[in-house]
């Protein structure tokens, strides 16, 4: 008898684990999430890429479109313009945001909570709104026109000013967080070694937050590079890539060229995304578990300077909003400065009128409810269920992609994908549903990460325990995971709502006359010269987002009171 003739003993055969009912359900749901992200993120982007290397008839022509683009001096100039405003805008934004965040985090000036809230005000408005304010202030009829010494606001100056306002809160948030991660002991050691304040700043403070600053630089650069609202309103003849895409697609129906510019817009975003991931990985090890959190001590001169700076910046931020608000209630700037609410009578101006606003509300509510459900369930399945490791990793990657994709690019890729006649999903094109789907995808990443962070704080063994108690995982999801993560869930829903209210870039390619949104209406009314109406609609959006934020604060307070017994810090 030879060894080979022996049967393999039963015990050493590989075990094929049976899934059971729970496993079946969780894996099919995981597959659903994967399919959803493939359909709404990955495949549309692929359609864009394909379009950029095709001619009008759909034949593959390699990089010919790109060559044609760079051969056109007017188009190629846009690239230079885009870089100019992005670089200058980034430098100014980061400088202001750093000082502001430093004052919030490292000084003892009064009113830090209030100043932090004010810094976030620009997030409530579409980026069109600061641009409108700039026109009221410095435009041809502007009240402060003389301050520009004869230069025109229409062009790089206006774009940069508007973009700084628009990008400021993003930079403050990132730098604020990185400044929070400081170890008191390092400062004590530096003091013991007799380092002066300047030396301490350059050897302790700056190295401690350099990753945050780098990350903020990239985020701000990408925001400005790809923003469409500000240059659309105050760009004048100064073309940038974002307005080029719009002109190529909406103005000339040149989809191939639009795709080419879309690909160009993707480059810095993808680059900054990669750098950011790298930076975040290194940031983790910076603060050890035994670090003592930094606490600022009062310092009269420093606190006074910080306060003065924050007051000045806050005044500008609120001032910009106030100007738009004023513009919206003034009869006919600057000739008739009487007050009126007539500008809010949108039904007079536009066939959609207030309908656009209600469309926005419907879209924002649907996005908040459906988006939050998909994101949270998706994050839960990725984080808490077992099996199919590769698909799990693929879902996580697909969920990260939207962060690197500017809205214009995503909107454009939706045209290419959903408007294709062969696509069975074609019926979605020009419906409210596609606006919701697009907005969910557009802001997916931040929501996904918020959900993951909350879920990671739950004990990893809840699912194991409930399986041992014969309770299916979805019951534990409802009874434990959702209630415990409720603050994060509310956070996600509100984030979706506010962004759905304010977004312009992606949906500008996808709305129809029946599904026009408030933010689009701001754009159209400005286009047709009804600046006051545009400002009025913009202010309506701001008021709505602000109200929702307020609602969130109240909800969270109520929730905290109700769950005080079991929620511990």
């Amino acid at each position, binding site marked *: 008898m030879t060894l080979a003739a022996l049967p393999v*003993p*039963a*015990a*050493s*055969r*590989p*075990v*094929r*684990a*049976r*899934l*059971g*009912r*729970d*496993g079946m359900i969780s894996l099919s749901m995981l597959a659903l999430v994967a399919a959803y992200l493939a359909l709404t993120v990955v495949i549309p982007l692929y359609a864009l890429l394909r379009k950029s290397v095709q001619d009008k008839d759909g034949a593959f022509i390699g990089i010919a479109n790109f060559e044609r683009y760079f051969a056109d001096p007017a188009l190629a100039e846009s690239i230079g313009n885009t870089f100019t405003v992005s670089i200058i805008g980034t430098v100014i934004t980061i400088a202001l945001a750093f000082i502001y965040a430093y004052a919030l985090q490292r000084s003892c000036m009064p009113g830090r909570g209030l100043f932090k809230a004010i810094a976030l005000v620009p997030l409530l408005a579409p980026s069109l709104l600061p641009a409108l304010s700039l026109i009221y202030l410095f435009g041809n009829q502007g009240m402060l026109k003389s301050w520009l010494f004869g230069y025109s606001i229409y062009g790089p100056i206006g774009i940069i000013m508007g973009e700084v306002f628009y990008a400021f809160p993003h930079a403050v948030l990132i730098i604020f967080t990185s400044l929070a991660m400081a170890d008191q002991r390092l400062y004590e050691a530096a003091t013991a070694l007799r380092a002066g304040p300047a030396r301490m700043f350059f050897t302790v403070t700056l190295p401690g937050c350099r990753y945050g600053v780098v990350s903020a630089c990239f985020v701000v650069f990408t925001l400005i590079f790809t923003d469409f609202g500000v240059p659309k309103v105050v760009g004048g003849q100064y073309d940038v890539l974002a307005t080029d895409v719009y002109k190529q697609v909406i103005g000339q129906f040149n989809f191939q060229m639009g795709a080419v510019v879309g690909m160009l817009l993707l480059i810095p975003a993808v680059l900054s995304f990669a750098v950011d991931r790298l930076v975040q990985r290194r940031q983790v090890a910076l603060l050890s578990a035994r670090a003592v959190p930094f606490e600022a001590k009062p310092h009269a001169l420093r606190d006074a300077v910080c306060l003065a700076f924050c007051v000045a910046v806050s005044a500008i931020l609120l001032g910009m909003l106030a100007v738009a608000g004023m513009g919206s209630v003034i009869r006919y700037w600057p000739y008739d400065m009487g007050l009126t609410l007539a500008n809010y009578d949108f039904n007079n101006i536009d066939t959609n009128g207030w309908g656009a606003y209600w469309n926005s509300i419907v879209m924002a509510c649907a996005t908040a409810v459906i988006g939050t459900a998909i994101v949270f369930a998706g994050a839960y399945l990725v984080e808490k269920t077992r099996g199919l490791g590769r698909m799990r990793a693929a879902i996580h990657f697909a969920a990260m992609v939207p962060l690197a994709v500017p809205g214009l690019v995503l909107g454009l890729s939706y045209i290419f994908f959903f408007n294709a006649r062969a696509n069975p999903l074609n019926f979605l094109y020009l419906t409210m549903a596609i606006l919701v789907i697009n907005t969910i995808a557009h802001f997916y990443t931040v929501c996904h990460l918020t959900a993951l962070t909350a879920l990671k704080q739950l*004990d*990893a*063994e*809840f699912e*194991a*325990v*409930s*399986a*041992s*108690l*014969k*309770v*299916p995982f979805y*019951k*534990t999801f409802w*009874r*434990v995971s959702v*209630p*415990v993560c409720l603050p994060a869930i509310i956070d996600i829903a509100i984030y979706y709502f506010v962004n759905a209210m304010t977004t312009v870039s992606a949906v500008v390619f996808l709305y129809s006359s029946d599904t026009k949104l408030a933010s689009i209406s701001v754009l159209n009314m400005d286009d047709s010269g009804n600046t006051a109406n545009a400002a009025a609609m913009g202010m309506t959006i701001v008021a709505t987002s602000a109200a929702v934020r307020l609602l969130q604060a109240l909800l969270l307070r109520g929730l905290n009171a109700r*769950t005080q*017994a*079991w*929620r*511990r810090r």
Partner: protein
Amino acid sequence: MPSPMAAPYLRIEHVGKLFGGFRALNDVSLNINEGELVCFLGPSGCGKTTLLRAIAGLDVQTTGAIHQAGRDISALPPSERDFGIVFQSYALFPNITVARNVGYGLASTGADRAKASARVAELLALVGLTDQSDKYPAQLSGGQQQRVALARALALSPGLLLLDEPLSALDARVRAHLRHEILALQRKLKVTTILVTHDQEEALTMADRIVVMNHGVIEQVGTPEDIYRRPATAFVADFVGRMNFLPAEMAGPKRLALAGVFLDCAEAIDLPAGSPVNACLRPEDVMVRDLGLGHANALDVGVAAMEFLGSFYRARLTTAAAVEITADFSANAVRDLGIEVGATIKVVLPPDRLRVYPR
């Protein structure tokens, strides 16, 4: 007809587990009898938790079979197996009360409410937490949380109780107390129990049998006394308790040469003369009193250092050939014999206490 001779309750046969290229378990076979408390003991990364999770079905083994109560459970998902589990983190649901945590599994079995709440009350009484039933987990101490987790794991009267380092998150006093409580509970319910721990004291005091693991294989299975008195391998000898490792060579089947001195050992060692070995001896087995004449393995040693450890002293002894031996002497012996640093004393390394492992 459950008797010690009956078929084992849990049969683990040739279980292997691969994580990518890493072999976490390598051909592990083990039988566990009904009602037994077995400890999986070993350093972190030895595979003890992997084996527990394979038994629970949380991470199913790559190869091999597991039978529980005569049923092949090798490929079953956790929900179709019969076990209760307590994790190191307890994994109590934070947003529901103690009573509802304990009754979590009862609610879905379709048992009627009155029966379920009676069972919860019974379980809470069992772990002595009757008056805490309406509190939330965060309002309890670590030890109380641990008992809630235990009650929850026992709620469905599982045939097998799995405890994954259940005591290591607690401070020393609570740990010692809970050790006895768990043990008493286990004896009372006679539930077959597997306890994973890296704490040898826990294993020695609680276990009916200890399974010592290292690098994904079982090094030894035995009663606590077996493991401590007759460690099967050098790893077990080193991992459990303190042990002198004295480099020596075989000089005969029952004779060792240790730096110019010959030592006898009681057991015959199946190694050719001249093979390098370690002669191992627990510090407390070094004899210093009542050394009558004609004792084998008597040595004259110098006392190099003494460490006072309360009820006993730990002495560092050196032989003429500069071999170091650690010995524990009772406070009595030290006082009576006047042992102090610098003194030369006579000690005996008892042949029946010497363990020999190939080097």
